[in-house]
């Protein structure tokens, strides 16, 4: 972290940076509100619109068993309104929600008993409770204005309205016509300052369906889930952002509310506005709306990391799909000095038609192989996924990938490969400036991950300083057999009995 919010508490920090890049400037204007919230602005009046990106420094890595998936579920609930948006009478809703919460608590207890054959839980009781909850929900419904927040944005020309959750962050974005700045600040500040977690239980079911859609009915979804679970012994990256199915089924509204209170503070928040706006105006509107939100305590740190891996791990996932595979090697967090070399290595392996995997795996018709570096808050995985072609197996393609990685250990890469990556880094940077939404994401994400958006520039310089020797070193250090986990999707025979997870959803 570049700034310690405690130190500058009460201080209005207003800094203007202009990083020269030949003629191209990355001109980010920055202000930290008195409650610790960071505001970043880039002025770009090329079209009468602006894009926003609000980043909360919380993601699935901040979760623990029992509430896995809570970051993402909470992201959904932030669209359900506030004490002032989405309701005609918040006071009347309160006791009803409390009633639902207590019924849900009894239901969860009963369901837990049902898991243990000797404790005598009752399915009938669960169903009765479910009906009782539905009755109270129906009573609450008379006060609810459905999806008012979303609808208000759309009516006002909101474009690209959405949100997403990752291991390391949760983000909310929308682009609006240039005259809608105050509307944005009002709505976003209200959902941090006055959030109301209404319609919780139906949204929990929605997320459960999202899990079926993306993970349970997709071979690749199951494959990624298996990789993280097998590779991470300790680190909260072991579960996916969507969370475990049974956690989603059983999480309570109170669990989510506690989580919200712990992480959704101004000091844990970065708001970026890029487009046809004036920075001074953005700052004063943000001060007016976000500035009122009280500062909160620093969220708890994450300190559970992986045990060192001491041997290759292999997992099979049976699925009604053709074979694919993924391998992961432990690699360090985004701020680590080796990341730039690993990044260049992944480009040389993976990017474009001159890349080594394309030349030696795709063009030789083994199949397809792609390599991905992770840029994560905590140590994570460098992954390589493969899709075999023709008569080749997943194992064959992995063998071909390992040959390519071994070449990187044994001989320095060629100078033109390095030059290519350097030039592409510069060209990418120029292209990235053309997109309001893209820039808002980049400065916000970098500030969240590293503490300072300037790292966008510094990192590019680090990338351009990587030498062939650096690549040999990181290839040798990280890409060992004992440091890797390999997951293979194996085609399931059709006759096997069906998945029984379709029973009554208790």
């Amino acid at each position, binding site marked *: 972290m570049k700034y310690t919010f405690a130190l500058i508490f009460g201080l209005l920090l207003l800094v203007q940076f202009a990083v020269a890049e030949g003629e191209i400037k990355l001109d980010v204007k920055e202000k930290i509100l008195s409650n610790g919230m960071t505001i970043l602005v880039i002025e770009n009046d*090329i079209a009468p619109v602006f894009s926003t990106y609000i980043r909360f420094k919380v993601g699935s890595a901040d979760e623990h068993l029992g509430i896995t998936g809570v970051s993402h579920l909470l992201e959904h609930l932030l669209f359900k309104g506030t004490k002032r948006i989405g309701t005609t009478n918040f006071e009347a809703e309160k006791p009803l929600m409390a009633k639902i919460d207590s019924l849900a608590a009894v239901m969860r207890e009963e369901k837990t008993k049902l898991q243990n054959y000797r404790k005598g839980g009752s399915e009938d009781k669960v169903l009765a409770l479910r009906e009782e909850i539905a009755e109270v929900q129906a009573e609450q419904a008379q006060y609810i204005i*459905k999806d008012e927040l979303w*609808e208000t944005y759309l*009516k006002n020309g909101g474009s690209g309205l959405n949100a997403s959750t990752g291991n390391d962050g949760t983000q909310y974005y929308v682009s609006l016509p240039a005259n809608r700045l105050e509307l944005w600040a009002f709505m976003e500040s209200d959902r941090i300052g006055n959030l109301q977690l209404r319609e919780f239980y139906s949204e929990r079911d*929605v997320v459960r369906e999202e899990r079926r859609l993306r993970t349970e*009915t997709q071979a690749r979804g199951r494959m990624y889930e298996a990789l993280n679970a097998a590779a991470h012994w300790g680190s909260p990256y072991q579960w996916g952002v969507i969370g475990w199915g049974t956690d989603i089924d059983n999480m309570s509204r109170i669990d989510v509310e506690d989580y919200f209170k712990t992480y959704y503070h101004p000091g844990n928040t970065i708001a970026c506005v890029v487009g046809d706006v004036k920075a001074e105006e953005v700052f004063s509107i943000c001060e007016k709306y976000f500035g009122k939100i009280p500062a909160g305590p620093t969220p708890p740190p994450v300190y559970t990391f992986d045990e060192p891996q001491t041997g290759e791990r292999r997992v099979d996932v049976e699925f009604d799909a053709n074979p694919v595979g993924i391998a992961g090697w432990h690699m360090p967090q985004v701020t680590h000095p080796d990341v730039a070399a690993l990044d260049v290595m992944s480009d040389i392996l993976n990017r*474009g038609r001159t890349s080594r995997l394309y030349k030696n795996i795709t063009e030789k018709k083994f199949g397809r192989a792609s390599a991905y570096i992770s840029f994560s808050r905590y140590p994570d995985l460098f992954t390589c996924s493969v899709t075999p072609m023709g008569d080749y197996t997943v194992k064959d393609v992995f063998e071909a990938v390992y040959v390519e990685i071994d070449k990187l250990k044994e001989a320095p890469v060629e100078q033109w490969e390095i030059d290519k990556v350097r030039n592409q880094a*510069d*060209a990418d940077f120029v292209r990235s400036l053309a997109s309001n939404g893209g820039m808002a994401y980049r400065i916000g994400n970098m500030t969240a991950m590293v503490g300072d958006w300037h790292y966008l520039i510094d990192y590019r310089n680090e990338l351009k300083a990587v030498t062939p020797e650096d690549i040999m070193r990181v290839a040798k250090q990280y890409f060992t057999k004992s440091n890797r986990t390999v997951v293979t999707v194996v085609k399931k025979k*059709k006759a096997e009995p069906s998945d029984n997870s379709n029973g009554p959803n208790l």
Partner: protein
Amino acid sequence: MKKLIFAILLLALVCTSVSTFAQQSEGSKIISEFKYKDIKWSVPQVGKEVKREVLDNGIILYMMEDHSLPLLSMSAKIRCGEAYESTEMMAVPDFTGSIMRSGGTTNVTADSLNAILELVGGSVETWIGSENGGARLSVLTKDTELGVRLMADVLRNPAFPEDKIDLMKSQYKNRIKRRNDRPASILSREFYHVIYGDHPDGRILEWAYIKDISRDDLVAYHEKYFAPNNLMIGITGDFKPKEIKKLLNQYFGDWKQKGITFPKIQKVKNEPKPGVYQLQKDINQANIRFGHLGITRDNPDRFAISIMNYILGGGSFTSRMTTKVRSDEGLAYSVRSSFNTGSRDLGTFNASTQTKSSTAYKALRLMMDEVERIRKAPVEDEELDGAKDSYINRYVFGFTSAGQIVGRLMGLEFNDRPRDLLQKYLDNIHAVTKEDVLRVAKKYLTPENLTIMVVGNADNFDKPFDEFGAITHIEITDPVLE
């Protein structure tokens, strides 16, 4: 940065609706007090913001300068595509469109072309789709001449080497082999096949149409369609028109025109295929889609239809289907309907969702009820206003970059659409009334014609689907790869 769009007309982006909810939220009262400054903006036009010129050999140019970044882009459009070809030849356009770039040219080998472009952080890509072919160049300004030269070479002199043809065949074979791996791709393929039959919009690509493709096919295809009189190029970014035209003349100027006879595109047979089509797959979620043929892009009712569909299921969380199935009942993550209003021939209306097997019937029932409801009674004022406001206020997002603007204006000429279409769009949306919405719902949504398809484990559905129509079982079979 310099302003890209000049203020010519004053277009006030305003909210037409004052919320008429019987009971308002406190937030909406606060929001209604906000004052929005007018935004000076107008739809860009050819002859004003965008220049149109024709080179001596017939290449049509659309140009829009934007000197804010040192980048140059060119986007070419060529009339050709899969829709013009017979089923047996359906893969030839895609092979041609891909390999003209991936295979290099008679002047530059594939490896050299790849290396040059990647070394300067630039790209040239080509493709051929259903009804058009395209090429795109993106380079830093300093590499403008290199880029134009390579793009011209790729378009004019592709080498089509055998090894790249073999590679693409293997890749296609693998793709066909894997086409039943994802429920969504099974559903999409089979659904359009039932609706369109063997028409290009519905036919299914098989290995049999690929295995015998030869280099001669690609050479002949390229020879037939690629000519300066069949080419439009949009140029955007950091360039001077005079200089870029000089370069284009230098690298495209000696390309001779040729006569092209376009095959007639098969007409869509307007025959409904009502009923339930069930595909058994052992998964815990039912993938459901239903729909029928819709309208062409010339239909004067298309604006009212868009608004109607937005209210029905197109407007994400503000739509009726999403409110019912997702928000109220928690039955699905994704619930949506779409009514294609941009298709040359008949497009489709279709709606889809995915829900656990034990609520498949319930979710479908709720969606069908919404189709019935919007056909029976007028929509609410606030629904209509909300939909129109959304279309009007976000219209500007279709014109936020020079590339987008040139692409849309060039598209009008390419598709032979009225040139004032984009100017009149907002007036057309403004004009839609509640009566229009009801009328088009009755006329263009026809429940008796619906093709209903589901991929999933029907044994676990809450109720059989025969209530919605006679059930046809379609077996998910392994593709023939011999």
